[in-house]
Each structure stands twice: as structure tokens, then as C-alpha cells.
């Protein structure tokens, strides 16, 4: 592995992040609007099972929104791979004397750092949303957020590398990524869902990100699907698996 190459590719993603205001807003604004509108609209009429201390839908939906922001950001970051490879910066990276592993790690780490930072921007609203978490809980939140960014960016990378059109990516996103988010306990809890949906939610790695964030941000407010330890373990395995898959998919043909 070539650390200088990983560093430079990581830094390039960050440069894009703070230079491209439209992208920051594009990934941040829609989820916040969804959160506020859906959260406020359903807030009073929706009784959370196991909700304690008057926690409502705005609080419940906060973690799901955080994951949605990370998902949008990772999609925006990895979608560039498709165009970049044919016409753009990535061409010169592909003929540079660096191992393919450095390219994959630089891109994934850069894009997931951006996802993490975007998540932080939303996390600032947590106290205003009525979430009362202790400093220690925020540490867990950050860890879960980082792992979730890494995992979703890895999935984005695997999809983008194999596709040759951005339209194709949008199709995959609507058909696969958005449902993956919807069926993660982000919108509704597994507990009230029919058995077949419950099974899907349990098998979906994104559910464990939502579950971990909910437990960290609103401790004891909602009945969790799994323990915090299990959630974090699943997230670590998920992130490792998709990063390994990205390296494998982007390996140089023999």
C-alpha cells in the first residue's frame, strides 16, 4: 500500500467537500426537510411502541435521518467514479504507479469522511430536537456514524465501479439503496412491522446503524432491536466486508 497516494486521494475528496457548496446542501437539506415535515406530521398521531418519557416521532426519526444524510453523501461521492474513470481525474490515477488498494482506500476513506462530516452538521441539531444524550453517548454516536459512513460508501463504490452510466446508478439507488434505508427501522420500528418485514430489517446491516444511533442518542427511549454491542459488532463486520469487496471488485485484471 502507498500511504502518500491514499492521503492525496482522501484529501481530494475533502477539497471537493468544502468547495462544492451545492453538494453539501444537496445531501443535507432534503433529509432535514423530510425529518422535519414527516417528523412533525406524524409526531402526534404516531404512538411509538416502547417509547418512554414522551419521546415522539421527531426523536425516533432523527437517527434514520442521520443515516439518510450519510447515504446521500456517500452516493454523491462515489457516483463520480463512473464519469471520472472515462473522462477525468481517475484516468491518471489508474496509470499512476500506485497499487489499486491505495486507490480504493483513498476514495472510500475520503468519501466516508465527507459523509461523517455531513452527519456531524445534522448532529448539532440533536439538543434542539429534544435528544438528551450524555457526552459518553456522543462518543458512541460518532463511532456508529463513522462505521455507517464507511459501510455505505463501500456499497456505493462497489456499485459505481461496475456501472458505466450515472443513470444506472440512480436506478440502483432507487431500487436498492433507498429501500435498504426504508427497511432499516429508520422510518418505522421493527417491532410493529409484519413478520416478513421484521426478518428483512433484521438481515439489513443498515438497521444496526439506525439501532446503534437510537440507543446512543436517546438512551432508553425506544425498545432496541439488538444490544448496542451487537449493533457495533455488525457495523464493524459490515464496513470490513464492503471495503474488502470494493478492493476485490476494483482489482487489476490479470
Amino acid at each position: 500500500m502507498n500511504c502518500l497516494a491514499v492521503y492525496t486521494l482522501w484529501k481530494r475528496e475533502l477539497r471537493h467537500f468544502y468547495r462544492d457548496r451545492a453538494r453539501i446542501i444537496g445531501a443535507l437539506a432534503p433529509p432535514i426537510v423530510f425529518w422535519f415535515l414527516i417528523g412533525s406530521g406524524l409526531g402526534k398521531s404516531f404512538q411509538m411502541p416502547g417509547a418512554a418519557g414522551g419521546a415522539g416521532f421527531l426523536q425516533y426519526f432523527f437517527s434514520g435521518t442521520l443515516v439518510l444524510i450519510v447515504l446521500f453523501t456517500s452516493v454523491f461521492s462515489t457516483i463520480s467514479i463512473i464519469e471520472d474513470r472515462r473522462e477525468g481525474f481517475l484516468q491518471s490515477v489508474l496509470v499512476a504507479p500506485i497499487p489499486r488498494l491505495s486507490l480504493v482506500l483513498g476514495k472510500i476513506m475520503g468519501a466516508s469522511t465527507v459523509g461523517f462530516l455531513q452527519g456531524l452538521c445534522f448532529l448539532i441539531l440533536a439538543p434542539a430536537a429534544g435528544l438528551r444524550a450524555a457526552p459518553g453517548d456522543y462518543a458512541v454516536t460518532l463511532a456508529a456514524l463513522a462505521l455507517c459512513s464507511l459501510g455505505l460508501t463501500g456499497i456505493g463504490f462497489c456499485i459505481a465501479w461496475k456501472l458505466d452510466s450515472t443513470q444506472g446508478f440512480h436506478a440502483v439507488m432507487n431500487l436498492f439503496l433507498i429501500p435498504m434505508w426504508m427497511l432499516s427501522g429508520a422510518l418505522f420500528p421493527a417491532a410493529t412491522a409484519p413478520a416478513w418485514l421484521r426478518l428483512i430489517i433484521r438481515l439489513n446491516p443498515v438497521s444496526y446503524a439506525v439501532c446503534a444511533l437510537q440507543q446512543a442518542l436517546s438512551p432508553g427511549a425506544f425498545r432496541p432491536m439488538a444490544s448496542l454491542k451487537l449493533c457495533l459488532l455488525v457495523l464493524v463486520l459490515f464496513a470490513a466486508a464492503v471495503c474488502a469487496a470494493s478492493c476485490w471488485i476494483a482489482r487489476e485484471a490479470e
Partner: protein
Amino acid sequence: MERLGQEIKLTPAISVSRLSHTYPAKNKRPARRALRDVSLEVAPGETFGLLGPNGGGKSTLFKILSTFFKPSPGLVQVLGLDAAHDAAQIRPRIGVVFQNPSLDAKLTVSENMTHQGHLYGLRGKLLLQRIASMLERYGLSDRRDEPTGTLSGGLRRRVELAKGLLHDPELILLDEPSTGLDPGARRDLWDHLRELKSSRRITLLLTTHLMEDAENCDRLLLINEGKTAASGSPRELKARIGGDVIAIESANPLELQKAIKERFDIEPALVDGSLRIERERGHAFIPQLVESFPGLIKSVNLSQPTLEDVFVHVTGLGVRL
């Protein structure tokens, strides 16, 4: 001693032997053979051109030489190293300038250069010095903090060139370097390439469909439909025509073509709507021609053969400029 001197041969900068390349079938598109049995050799220090129409196979060959694609079947050696197995050793020693922009439009000139330097293992003071001297050499110093997306096409190509040369490669590969540049920017690019050749011993390989670029090369390989159509220096290639080129404009070129064939027993080539005849002592033939078909000829032009004529001669195709 003299014989011994002749036998010592420098390792060619590029050596390609019987290379073919097939793009596999994908999404109902059938497999396409882009290269068939192409061989070539480029000597160190040479400026070598791959000339051919778009879609003729030169970009595929470029991608193989720049280690973007793996060669198979066939043997490709770049700087004496096998491109199929030693890509990692080849890459630090070559500079690649793509036809499609490889600059990050959102980043400034110097940021683009910095990322490139890092990818080639350059860092710290050495990198800063290299970048400063490259920008100076290519007249880009006052643009260093501008995003490359805001530069003109000519300036962007100059940044691409500076970027490709940052790590001091022995061989530089340029894909269609003049395409999309206005005549002024094209001249400027060639001035820079010539200056580069005179300041250090560097081998240059470029692909082009522009005769102007081809004239600037020491040797050329004409490539069409994936096959070698001809090779040699521009002068050698032009000598192949053995005579002058007569171009005839007519309101009815097909009728004129037939009439000339019947009357003189020669077959003029129809290229882009005008007729072409290659003939020794062309000036003596023109009066006969004009007198024979008074109403059919709009204009006649006599010229020494150009590379475009050579191209038409060997491929039967017109090259659109």
C-alpha cells in the same frame, strides 16, 4: 569494430509485436476486434505518430501502451519491460497525457499538480520545486491558484502536459494532443513539445488524426480498421505516391469519374466529393483532362503529395480534418 558498432542496438523505447485486441461482447453489442496483428518499434528519442481515423484502433493501442489495458495476444515492451507483467515498473517511467481531460476541474492548477506529484511519490520541498519549475516553463505561474475548470482549452492542455511531465518520465504518450485546440494553441503545444525534445532526451509517442501533427513526427504508423496500413517517415510515405496529386471538383463527380475511366483508363478516387488522381507529370495531364470534359469540371488543383494523400492512397478513405 565498425560491425560491432552496428550490432550494438539501443533497447527500443517501445516494441510491439503482433498485437491484437478484442473488446468483449457486452449488452447485445457483439465483440469487436480493435487491433489485428500490429507491430511497431519506436527508438529512444524519437517522435512517433500513430495516425488514423477515429475508431481505427489507435486509441486502443494507446491504452495498451499506457498500461491502461493489458496486451493479449501479442508482445508489448515499453522501455524494455513487458507491459503484460511489469506494468508497475513501467508506470513511474512514463508520462501519459489523455485526450479526455484528466484534470480535476474543481481544483486549482497547483492542487492538480500536487495530487499528481503525490501519486508519483514526490513530496515536500522537491515536489514544490518541481511544480514551480513546471509552471514556470509552461507559462502557468500566474494561473496556479485558478481552478482548472475556468481555464481555456489551450491552457488546460498545457497543464495536462506539465502534469504528465512532473515526474520526469523517459517516455511520454499523448493521445490526440491537438484535438479541440485552435491553431494558435496547437502551435503553442508543438513549440512546447519541441522545446522539451531539445532540452532532454525524451521519447514521444502520440496518436492523431490531424495531418499537421503527423508532419511533426519523425516516423509514423498509419493505422486503419485495426491494421497497419503503412509506416515510415513522412517523407518516405509521401514518396510512395510517386508523382503529383490532381484534385478535381465537379458538379457531378460520379459521372466524371466514369468518363475519366473510359477515356484514360485510370480510376480516380472519389474522396469527400472530389476526385483524386495520382500521376507523374501531373501538369502535363491537366490540359488533356480539362479539354476532354469541358462542362464537367469546376476546378482542378495540382499539388505535391501530402500525408493526407498518402492516407487516401493506402486506405481509400478520406480523412476529415
